[in-house]
C-alpha cells in the first residue's frame, strides 16, 4: 500500500521544495502565535498565576489538533507514520530540562517561539530574552562534555503513552482529548475563582458556542478513534529509521 504523505519522504516533492515549503508553514505558526496572544509575555506568565489560562488552553488545542490529524491521516491510509520522525524519550534529562525551562519561562516571560514572534512586534523584553536564550544554548553546547552523559542517559526510544500504560493507541488518543478538555475546564474554573473577571465581554456567548462546538468535534473524533486497534494507526514491528540510538540497544526491562 503506497501512501502519499509525508510528501518529502515519499518523493512527491523534492528536498529543496520541502525546505521552501517550511516558510509558509512557519508563517502560519507565527501568525497563529500572534493571534493566540503569545507575543505578550504577561499573558504567558499569567498562566502560572491562573490569571489568564489561555496559554495552556492554546497548547491543549494545538496538541489535540496535531494528534487527531497525525493519527487520523494514518488511519485513513494517507500518511505513513513510519516515515514521520518520532521524538525519542530521554526521561530524566527531559524532566529536569522541563523544570528548568518552566522556571526560565516564568522569570523570562517567553519561550523561544513566542519570543521570536514577539520581537517582530517590537517587544524589547523579547529581544533581551532571546539574547539570553542564545547565550544559554551556547553555554550548553560549549560545555557539552560536562553534561553530555546525563543528556544521553535514560534513553527509551520513541516511547508512547499507550505503550507505557499498556493500552491501545486509539483509546490513548481519546484519553488525551478528555484530559485536554478536563484541563481546560478546570483551569478556567480556577481562574474565575482566583481572578474573577470585572469586564463583560459582549461576544462571550458566541465565543463559548464556537469553542464548545470545536471541542465537541474533537471529543467525537476521539471516541471514534477508540474503536480502532493500535495496528490501524501504526505498525510497531517496524522500527522507525530515525532513531538516534537503535531501539535494540535499549533494555526494555530497565524502564524508567
Amino acid at each position: 500500500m503506497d501512501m502519499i504523505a509525508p510528501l518529502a519522504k515519499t518523493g512527491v516533492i523534492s528536498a529543496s521544495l520541502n525546505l521552501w515549503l517550511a516558510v509558509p508553514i512557519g508563517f502560519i505558526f507565527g501568525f497563529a502565535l500572534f493571534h493566540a496572544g503569545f507575543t505578550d509575555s504577561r499573558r504567558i506568565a499569567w498562566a502560572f498565576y491562573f490569571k489568564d489560562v489561555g496559554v495552556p488552553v492554546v497548547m491543549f488545542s494545538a496538541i489535540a489538533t496535531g494528534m487527531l490529524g497525525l493519527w487520523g491521516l494514518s488511519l485513513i491510509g494517507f500518511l505513513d507514520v513510519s516515515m514521520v520522525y518520532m521524538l525519542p524519550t530521554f526521561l530524566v534529562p527531559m524532566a529536569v530540562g522541563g523544570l528548568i525551562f518552566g522556571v526560565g519561562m516564568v522569570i523570562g516571560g517567553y519561550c523561544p517561539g513566542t519570543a521570536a514572534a514577539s520581537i517582530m512586534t517590537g517587544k524589547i523584553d523579547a529581544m533581551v530574552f532571546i539574547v539570553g536564550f542564545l547565550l544559554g544554548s551556547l553555554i550548553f553546547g560549549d560545555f557539552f562534555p560536562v553534561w553530555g552523559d546525563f543528556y544521553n542517559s535514560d534513553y527509551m526510544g520513541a516511547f508512547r503513552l499507550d505503550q507505557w500504560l499498556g493500552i491501545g493507541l486509539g483509546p490513548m488518543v481519546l484519553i488525551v482529548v478528555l484530559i485536554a478538555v478536563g484541563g481546560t475546564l478546570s483551569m478556567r474554573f480556577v481562574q474565575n475563582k482566583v481572578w474573577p473577571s470585572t469586564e463583560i465581554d459582549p461576544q462571550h456567548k458566541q465565543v463559548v458556542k464556537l469553542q464548545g462546538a470545536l471541542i465537541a468535534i474533537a471529543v467525537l473524533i476521539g471516541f471514534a478513534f477508540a474503536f480502532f486497534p493500535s495496528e490501524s494507526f501504526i505498525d510497531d514491528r517496524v522500527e522507525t529509521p530515525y532513531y538516534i540510538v537503535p531501539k535494540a540497544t535499549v533494555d526494555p526491562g530497565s524502564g524508567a
Partner: protein
Amino acid sequence: MKFATRWPPVPAGILIGISMLLAFVVAGRGIGASGAMTRFVAWVQHGLFPATTEQSAYFGRYFADGAHPLNDYVVFLMVGLLAGSFVAAWLSGELRLEVLRGPRCSVAYRLVLALAGGVLAGFAARLARGCTSGQGLVGGAELSVGAWVFLMCIFAGGWMAAWFVRKQWI
C-alpha cells in the same frame, strides 16, 4: 477591534495545530523554534572560532561534510514564523516598541529577569532536546512519554518559581 487581534484560545490553538500537521504531512517532521536558535549561535561562533566550533562535541555535527548550519528545515521555519507574526501584528496595528511588564515592575527589573529567564530556558531547551513547540507540542501530538513529562515539568517548574517573581507580573 479586540476580537480580531486576540482570538479565543481554542481556534488559535487549532491553527497552531494545523501548522504542525502540515509539517507532518509535507516534511514528515514537526515544527520547532529552538533548533534554529542553536544553529544560529553555532554559526556565529563558527565565524569567530571556526576550528573550535567544528571540533565541538555538540556543535560539530552542524558542520559535518562541509554543511552550512543555517541550511536546515528549522531555519526556514523560523524565517516564516518571523514573517507571520510581523504580518499579523501589522494587520492588527500592534507594532509597537515597548517593554511588557506588570504594573509594579520597573523596566530595568524586567529586562534583567528577561535575560536571566532566557539563559535558563536556552540551556533547558538543549537539555530536553527541544522547546515548548518542538518538544512539547509535537511530542505531545505524537504521544511521546518524554514530551508529556517535559510539559508537566514546565508547569511544575513555573508554578514553583512564580511566587518569587510575582512583582514582575501582577
